[in-house]
């Protein structure tokens, strides 16, 4: 038990280290110049060198991302419930949603800047609008494919639509809700960082853009690594919540 959990805790680290070694090896072997692709060691060095600046920028990015993501979760669940519970809304809303989401959000950032100035607000909004769609889709799919047998259990009690949603719809869709959170949080990071590169004085996006205009590619990649790390931390958080709440769905997970 403890041995396995130790092992399972170690694997991501091991795979990360393997990846870094591979990356370092390839860059050195092919003499790839650092303005194309810096080595991870150079990137980590840059991260260390600029740690206090990175810390400040990362905190800002984390804050805007989580803010936007939180709105996305609330809105996504709400819209997903709406879309998933009625075919008419599904038909009306889905093409528009898909159309909207096919559009690169970076094109909308300047519009946001006109209204809100540069800084936190556009980043939060960008993180929100870029990340709510996967949640909508998975929640809607979860509700639309709810087994009629389970639905009937509640209907036979004269339950309202909301009851059905709360008591069987959401719990049933929970594994996929969490799946969509994993996608959504990564997109939220992308959104806030993109917005920061276009319109902000702070945040990892600004840091990366400013580093790249100063030829400091290792610092650019340090920024990428920091985002990746924050993404992973958020993911691990959801993972823990998920494991607690969807044990039933993984009841026969092969543990091999």
């Amino acid at each position, binding site marked *: 038990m403890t041995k396995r959990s130790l092992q399972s805790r170690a694997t991501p680290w091991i795979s990360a280290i393997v990846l870094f070694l591979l990356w370092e090896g390839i860059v050195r072997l092919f003499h790839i110049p650092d*303005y*194309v692709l810096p080595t991870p060691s150079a990137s980590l060095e840059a991260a260390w060198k*600029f740690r*206090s*600046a990175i810390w400040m920028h990362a905190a800002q990015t984390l804050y805007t991302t989580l803010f936007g993501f939180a709105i996305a979760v609330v809105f996504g669940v709400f819209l997903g419930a709406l879309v998933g519970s009625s075919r008419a809304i599904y038909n009306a809303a889905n093409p528009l949603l898909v159309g909207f989401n096919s559009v690169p959000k970076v094109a909308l950032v*300047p519009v946001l*800047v*006109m*209204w809100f*100035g*540069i*800084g936190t607000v556009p980043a939060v909004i960008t993180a929100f609008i870029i990340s709510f769609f996967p949640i909508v889709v998975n929640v809607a799919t979860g509700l639309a494919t709810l087994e009629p047998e389970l639905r009937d259990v509640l209907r036979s009690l004269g339950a309202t639509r909301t009851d059905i949603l709360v008591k069987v719809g959401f719990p049933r869709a929970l594994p996929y809700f969490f799946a969509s959170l994993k996608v959504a949080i990564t997109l939220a990071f992308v959104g806030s960082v993109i917005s920061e590169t*276009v*319109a*902000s*004085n702070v945040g990892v996006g*600004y*840091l990366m*853009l*400013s*580093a*790249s*205009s*100063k*030829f*400091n590619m290792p*610092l650019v990649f340090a920024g990428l690594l920091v985002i990746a790390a924050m993404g992973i931390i958020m993911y691990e958080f959801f993972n823990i919540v998920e494991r607690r709440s969807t044990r039933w769905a993984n009841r026969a997970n092969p543990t091999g």
Partner: protein
Amino acid sequence: KAETPVKFSLDWKFEGHTAPYILAKKKGYFADEGLDVTIDSGNGSVGAITRVASGAYDISLADINSLVEFNASHPDQAMKSVFMVYDRPPFSLFMLKKSGITKPEDLKGKTLGAPVFDASRKLFPAFAKATGLSLDDVTWKSMDPPLREPMLVRGDVDAISGHYFTSVLNLENQGVKREDMVVFKYADYGLDFYGNGILASRDMMENHGDQLRGFLRALVKGWRDAIANPDEAIAALKEVDPLIDTDLETKRLNMVIEDNVITDEVLAHGMGPISNDRMAKAIEQVSLAFGLQNPPEVADIFTSIYMPGEADRKIK
């Protein structure tokens, strides 16, 4: 006394050439004029113009040639520049010596790289006309700004366009020595454009003229101090953006000062004003380059109403 809040958008990120504004703020020159100025980084001249046009910002730093284009496409919302910062524009083309290109005619049949929004690229038709090239003589490849210097060094393109103080430094960073570069500065080929200037929103101009004048006074003070002591300006910049490379940005600031800001004209009359004739000619060339149907008048583009007095414009 109560300070008037002013939102000021730069044309680009916090780099050496934006240090004078930061310095002015740091030294309290804006505050002395009763202004509480917020300085935000920008994302290019297009953004800097629309930010002010839409009222999101009160003042911005932007390329005056882009303003000509904006006014032509939005005559009902036309805006005016109130102050010229770069008396000599930084528009240039860059080649490597080993390419064998030594004069503009050698560009025939070559491939050039730059982003579509790059001012030097947009003004290339004027350069071509001035040097007897035809537009079909070259092929353009579009790419993000940071990509162009590496692409040039690797030989993916034969030449690139860009601001002098950006691309020269980028190329140096790629390991290209100054003597291995060939640079065509547009200004050296009879193209008497102006460069970046200060724009103000209609509201600012109509209702806060004094503050605008004060802003410009403070701005000149910033430049004056930066010219006198570039290191101090860069130090101020570093406080805002701790990530900057001090040596690099000092170099950049010095290049801007020497190349774009300090001209005989400016030394004589101070920073800010323009010559009507020169501007008229520039508008003509720009309109040609951009294919504008009804080129604006100089008065539509620039106004001197808010220009500080000559003594306040002296930079040395």
